[in-house]
């Protein structure tokens, strides 16, 4: 097996504002294999987003080891990250395809190839035929699909998703979960997915990182050994219930 694709060991991050220290996250230790979909769950202020920002190279970490990439999968921090946020954050003045192309433009990738790839990705996320629409012409779920296509355009090795379906209604959210699993299988990407939802964490994850607040620390990580591809039926299975119970327990919410 060799080195894991991502290794975090004893990671800790403290923010300082006006002389005051604020512990954002601590005791973060977990490994991610290439092609995993790892979910991170926890209350507000537990440091989920901080971990994503450390992995994206946007914030330096305080202590511990952060390593991405291995011999088989070398990692270029300047171009191997794709990001999806709670808001789709599409540029209102750009057509959908031009929104998807934004990372490619920033990286200066060849235009023709990127355009062709953007069309393929839009088809993959179920937005074929919407290339020339403007964001306001799309529903919230469709905008988020476009944001996912945008995160894939430069073929990054790691996708960071910060509560991407948090702003969607419950039914759209369920649908997007199924869609995400399909996109994940088809693209073979490694995904880190932050959520507030325990069911979402179990349903999507190959493993789930559990974080708690006050103090912000990682409580545990649990491997979710439900078979793939996952189906909505699994949500009512005893095994699913058992995983959910464990997460509730770790989050101190029984």
């Amino acid at each position, binding site marked *: 097996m060799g080195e894991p694709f991502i290794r975090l060991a004893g990671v800790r991050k403290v923010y300082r504002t006006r002389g005051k220290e604020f512990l954002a996250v601590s005791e973060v230790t977990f490994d991610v294999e290439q092609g995993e979909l790892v979910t991170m769950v926890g209350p507000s202020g537990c440091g989920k987003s901080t971990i994503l*920002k450390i992995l*994206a*190279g*946007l914030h330096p970490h305080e202590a511990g080891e952060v390593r991405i990439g291995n011999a088989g999968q070398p990692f270029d921090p*300047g*171009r191997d*990250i794709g*990001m999806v*946020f709670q*808001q789709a*954050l599409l*540029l*209102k*003045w750009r057509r959908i395809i031009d929104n998807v192309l*934004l*990372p490619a*433009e*920033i*990286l200066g990738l060849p235009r023709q190839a990127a355009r062709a790839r953007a069309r393929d990705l839009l088809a993959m996320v179920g937005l074929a035929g919407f290339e020339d629409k*403007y*964001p*306001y012409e799309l529903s919230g779920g469709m905008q988020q699909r476009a944001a996912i296509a945008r995160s894939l355009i*430069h073929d990054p090795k790691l996708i960071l998703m*910060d509560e991407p379906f948090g702003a969607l209604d419950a039914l759209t959210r369920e649908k997007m979960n199924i869609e995400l699993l399909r996109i994940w299988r088809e693209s073979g990407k490694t995904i880190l997915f932050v959520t507030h939802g325990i069911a979402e964490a179990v349903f999507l994850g190959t493993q789930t990182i559990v974080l708690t607040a006050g103090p912000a620390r990682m409580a545990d990580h649990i491997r979710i050994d439900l078979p793939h591809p996952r189906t909505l039926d699994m949500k009512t299975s005893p095994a699913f219930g058992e995983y959910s119970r464990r997460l509730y327990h770790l989050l101190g919410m029984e």
Partner: protein
Amino acid sequence: MSGGGAWRIGLAILAHVLVIAAWHFFVVWGEVPTYVMPTPWDTLQALVAGDYPWWSNIRVTAIEIYGGYALAVVLGVAAALVFTWSRLLEAAVMPVLITFNMIPKVALGPLFIVWFSYGVVPNALIAFSIAFFPIVLTTARGLREVEPDLLDLVRSLRGSRWQIFVKIQLPGALPYIFSGMKVAAILAVAGAIVGEFLGSDSGLGYLMLQVQVTLDTAAMFMAVALISLLGVLLYGLVVVLERIFVVRDARVT
């Protein structure tokens, strides 16, 4: 624009016609003397009746309004751009600008006349000084309104400041720039006319003062109409440009 748009335009024209008709019948039925209020037709006649040099005065006023306005747009947007590139400069200069904005710009008129003599230049400068601030303020605000997550996305790809500026900040600020330009268009007209009232030897505002002496009210009405027309043309141009450059959903109303 759909069929609904044509219907709206038709209704708008009809409403204007009705207002003019109401004006006409108010004067005729009310037997209002012409020196108090002329009919619409009298007003139109003023273009040929009094033998006033309309055209040359329209040109002067147009140059003052459009010149002052163009300068305000260019310098206003440029100042706001400079602020986004230097936080220090913004922190230092912005409060001064806000204080200057409190000065009633027409109060500067007599000073401008002292500095630049009277004529086109001081009047254009009054138009400029009154139109400048809304453009700086709205543009600076628009440039600041960037989603932090979007910045993270660009930074995670090691995007440059310049890329952030060109691809995200500037197009994002366009709706704000246009909303400032619309406010400024109305103000620039008022600024130029007040300048002409204060001291000048040409322009529609100057002409108004001349015909006031002879109680040619119809010509005064015509002058007001022409001044308004200059303003409407400017405002219309800004709206057309906005429609071309700003996607519907992004417009600030």
